[in-house]
């Protein structure tokens, strides 16, 4: 198929599907809730009233709503940051944690768990660890006086593997009965036990960078022509690239600190987005956000509904994401797209 699909209804359709999916997701689970009940609980919570029974309200507001909100926000954040990174580095094979965010966040979280800190501190340590790792990745090429993208990617690989060794060391010193299990579960990623209070402090770090990136969408297009060409086109490359890396890193770091590492979403969803919305980032970023939110919502709902025991979400994103990515590549090859 040639020519560009310019579906004007794509964003409205996704914008409707997402809340509908969210309400449906509130209803499914071990404790059944009807759509009507869930809407009335949500309405009650928003207006301060509420007529549903306490048990339903607890399940909906205490367990499911935070988790559903988190899965949507994290899916959207990872996808937007993945799409932005791929654009800036002109490499569709890059995932949002290639600068070492996830590795750093895991080290931060593991350190906090070893220090027996509370979950709020674990989050904060993870966030700081992620940012520190990216700071290190960005500093290395500066020390080598190189501004090449490739140097940054290599530096990300170096920092990433250093972080994974560090994580291994922390795991080795952890108490195998309690701490090691906690670290392992944390790194697997998941939305269980996530409360609204955990989510709120992360909200500005998820929303503001996403909005900035979407506003900068067209500059990312120009930057995706390559650094030299973008400069010759009159783009202040260092400023734009720095802002994009900062925003995308904040998005990934806040996602990881909320839910641990979740693989595949930030790599795969931007490809689906490009297939549906074209390569222009002004459209690609919001479409990726909606698609990513929807995808992680569906996958997380699956993890808590299939099987007797709940599965860590990263296992399922991998199981769904890997073949999905394969299919996308096959589709793109067939359509003759350069990759």
């Amino acid at each position: 198929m040639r020519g560009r699909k310019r579906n004007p209804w794509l964003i409205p359709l996704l914008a409707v599907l997402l809340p509908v999916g969210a309400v449906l997701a509130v209803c499914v689970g071990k404790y059944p809730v009807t759509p009507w009940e869930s809407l009335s609980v949500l309405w009650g919570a928003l207006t301060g009233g509420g007529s549903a029974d306490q048990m339903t309200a607890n399940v909906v507001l205490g367990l499911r709503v935070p988790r559903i909100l988190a899965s949507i926000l994290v899916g959207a954040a990872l996808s937007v940051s993945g799409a932005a990174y791929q654009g800036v580095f002109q490499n569709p094979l890059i995932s949002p944690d290639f600068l070492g965010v996830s590795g750093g966040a895991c080290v931060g979280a593991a350190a906090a768990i070893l220090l027996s800190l509370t979950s709020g501190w674990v989050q904060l340590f993870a966030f700081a660890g992620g940012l520190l790792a990216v700071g290190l990745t960005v500093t290395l090429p500066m020390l080598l006086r190189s501004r090449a993208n490739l140097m940054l990617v290599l530096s990300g690989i170096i920092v990433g593997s250093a972080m994974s060794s560090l994580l291994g060391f922390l795991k080795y010193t952890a108490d195998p009965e309690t701490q090691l299990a906690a670290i392992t579960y944390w790194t697997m990623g998941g939305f269980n036990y996530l409360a609204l209070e955990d989510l709120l402090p992360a909200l500005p770090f998820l929303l503001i960078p996403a909005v900035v990136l979407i506003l900068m969408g067209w500059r990312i297009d120009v930057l995706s022509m390559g650094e030299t060409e973008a400069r010759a086109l009159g783009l202040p490359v260092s400023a734009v690239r720095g802002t994009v890396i900062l925003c995308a890193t904040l998005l990934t770091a806040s996602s990881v600190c909320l839910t641990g590492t979740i693989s595949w979403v930030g790599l795969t969803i931007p490809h689906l987005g490009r297939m549906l919305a074209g390569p222009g980032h002004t459209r690609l970023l919001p479409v990726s956000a909606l698609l990513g939110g929807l995808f992680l919502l569906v996958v997380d709902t699956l993890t808590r509904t299939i099987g007797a025991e709940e599965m860590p979400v990263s296992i399922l994103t991998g199981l769904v994401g890997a073949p999905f990515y394969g299919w996308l590549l096959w589709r793109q090859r067939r359509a003759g797209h350069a990759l």
Partner: protein
Amino acid sequence: MLYEIHDLNFSYPGGPPVLEQVCLTLKEGEILTVLGPNGAGKSTLLNCMMGLLPTQAGAVRLCGRDITAMSEREIARLAGYVPQNHTPVFDYSVLEFVLMGRAALLSPLARPGPEDRREAEKALEAMGLSHLAHRPYTDISGGERQQATVARAIVRHPKVVLFDEPTAHLDFGNQLRVLRMVRRLSEGGYATVVTTHNPDHAILLGGTAAVLDRQGCLRSGPAEELLTEELLRQIYDTQLLVRYSQELGRRVCLYPPL
């Protein structure tokens, strides 16, 4: 004067000098063809003229201002750059691709508007590419992509367009089309700088020629006078011939029998 280059030196870290005491001027509407053997620094010179590489000694002045004191935006408003074909990654439409040439005119968070779109369509029309506007630019031929790149350079109406080996990777017919296009741009009031490996292109384009040698020294002058058989032999270290053809009404540069 569009460009005034005085005693420009450049070398890559740890390498020999690539440009040595280069002096060059370019007037409005002038055609300048830069010749030189492989690795002589033709692209480096263009990069210095676009402010993409720092000047190490001497000065490059663009419209009277020192280029190191100018922002990317200010340079891009005056000078358009047509790089050698790059490998496209994302499949923007030809129109979207050309629109990116407006970046230097837009305020930092603005997106291209209807006027930018009209200008992009005009630039595509000038390059004879209107029929490809909505095709992915990954999907068109190398020659067409180069024309799209020229459209992207002129869409902001700079004063000068710099071409980095525009005839490389093109077949014989397309090379001639590119030279005609350069001539047309010059007639349209743009100054043009073209690097090429083919001395015949410099002769065809006329105007000013500049020759860079391996030591980084640059000689320039009217193409008609500068490009003598002796100089070209010396530059390319080959026994090539420059003859006047009655039939063509111009000088031609030819290889001897093998």
